[in-house]
């Protein structure tokens, strides 16, 4: 058995009954008739050398729309992830957008002994600690905020600040650490398993030392990485992993936070990592529903059928991605809502990117404010409560 055979088997591709549903729903196959997830498997059966240079293995967004529809749960995303690692081990260097800036930054973060300055966003009103029950994992928000500082209205640091505000309101002083490093999601999905594991070890050591019983995330990718990829390699973690929406959902149920009434109509974009990868659909909706006066209007493609933001791991930015982003923004405008809410900072970056430049359609058709879920929640909490 070669490594590629193992990948095909682990993805469950031998159970495929050739029904073709995966290709029917795949957003890439819809834009490019030459692309089909099954075809990649067929080509890979002839060995890694046969597919290492195939653009298709880098074009899949690993959005799992295909697996969601597959009657046999064939998991192409995992197959693609493994293929990429194999391709990289044969010397292939993937071409990432921003000229590999993100991946370079992540590899540098994997170097031990660098004293970062990543907590500049912690204003004096925010209470954080070194040790405690709850660890708030900020991810790359501080770095992304610098990299995308020219993107109008993007408020990535506001996500981290809002999270701490929410914790503080509920009487919790979260652990926020200057030693935290990138979760490694994008390295893991671009075939760099070596540096991915280095980052993982740094984070797992750090969280262990903090004594936390719960780790809360505001980024869908970070949560997926801990929940699935870290536990795959490092075994079961002995603390709970929660998305901020789940954490707030519990706080609301316990009556620990209440919201001010607002008259607002919003729509919600399920990020693939939070939705299809982890199955978290209800928590964000419950929380939005608990905000008095806030109306959630669903888009046509929602929950399991949610559209992808077009780019994953900084690999797949092209005209297909731009079309997908515009289509998604138009769908959001079509709901008549006041804003589009999402819970993945990168969905926000990519969707916003499509409307930040000249568009092939009239601006009004796709222009709607985008806000992160965490910021929406922090701004709606009742003052003093």
């Amino acid at each position: 058995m070669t490594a590629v055979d193992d990948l095909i088997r682990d993805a469950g591709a031998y159970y495929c009954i050739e029904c073709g549903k995966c290709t029917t729903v795949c957003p890439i196959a819809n834009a490019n008739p030459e692309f089909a997830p099954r075809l990649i498997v067929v080509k890979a059966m002839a060995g890694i050398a046969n597919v290492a240079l195939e653009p298709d293995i880098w074009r899949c967004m690993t959005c799992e729309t295909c697996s969601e529809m597959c009657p046999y749960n064939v998991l192409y995303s995992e197959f693609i992830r493994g293929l990429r690692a194999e391709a990289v081990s044969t010397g292939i260097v993937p071409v990432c957008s921003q000229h590999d800036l993100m991946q370079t930054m992540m590899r540098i973060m994997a170097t031990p002994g660098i004293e970062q300055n990543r907590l500049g966003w912690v204003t004096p009103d925010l209470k954080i600690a070194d040790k405690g029950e709850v660890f708030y994992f900020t991810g790359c928000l501080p770095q992304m905020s610098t990299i995308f500082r020219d993107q109008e209205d993007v408020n990535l640091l506001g996500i981290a600040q809002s999270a701490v505000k929410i914790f503080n309101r509920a009487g919790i002083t979260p652990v926020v650490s200057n030693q935290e490093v990138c979760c490694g999601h994008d390295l893991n999905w671009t075939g760099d398993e070596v540096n991915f594991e280095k980052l993982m070890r740094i984070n797992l050591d750090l969280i262990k030392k903090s004594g936390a019983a719960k780790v809360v995330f505001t980024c869908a990718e970070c949560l997926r990485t801990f929940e699935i990829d870290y536990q795959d390699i490092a075994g079961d973690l002995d603390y709970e992993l929660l998305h901020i929406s789940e954490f707030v959902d519990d706080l609301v149920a316990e009556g620990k936070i209440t919201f001010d009434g607002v008259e607002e109509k919003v729509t919600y974009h399920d990020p693939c990592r939070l939705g299809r990868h982890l199955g978290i659909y209800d928590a964000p909706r419950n929380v939005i529903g608990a905000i008095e006066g806030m109306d959630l209007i669903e888009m046509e493609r929602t929950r399991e059928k949610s559209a992808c933001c077009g780019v994953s791991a900084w690999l797949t930015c092209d005209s297909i991605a731009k079309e997908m982003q515009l289509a998604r923004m138009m769908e959001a405008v079509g709901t008549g809502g006041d804003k589009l809410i999402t819970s993945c900072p990168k969905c926000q970056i990519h969707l916003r990117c499509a409307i930040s430049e000249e568009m092939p359609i009239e601006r009004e058709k796709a222009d709607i404010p985008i806000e992160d879920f965490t910021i929406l929640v922090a701004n709606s909490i009742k003052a003093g409560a």
Partner: protein
Amino acid sequence: MEPKIVAFCCKWCSSAGADLAGTSRMKYPPNIRIIRVMCSGRIEPSYILRALELGADGVIVTGCHLGDCHYIAGNEQAKKRVEMTTELLETMGIDPRRLRLEWISASEGARFASVMTDFVEEIKELGPSPLGGVS
């Protein structure tokens, strides 16, 4: 150990400045490795990070003076990018003094030599980069 420094020089001004320094027999330390590019606006933040990742102790980006860019505004682009990268390095815990941006025209051979001498001095004071050639 002698520091290794990468200097990105644009074709039209600063690398002509480097040539002038050379033909005029001006001295500057041998720590500088020049990479000539068509325009300072060609320099991506990732090139700077990549140079540091590969073990450079300092990176200097040089171009035509503002207003003199051969491609009109490439150097303004470079300025924006270097500013962004400086902020990023700060957050990442890499001393932002390891990155410098300087405007050097084709007639400024002496300035080329003095800027490079000064930068090498500064990097020597900072000591070796914490990334010291990881890959």
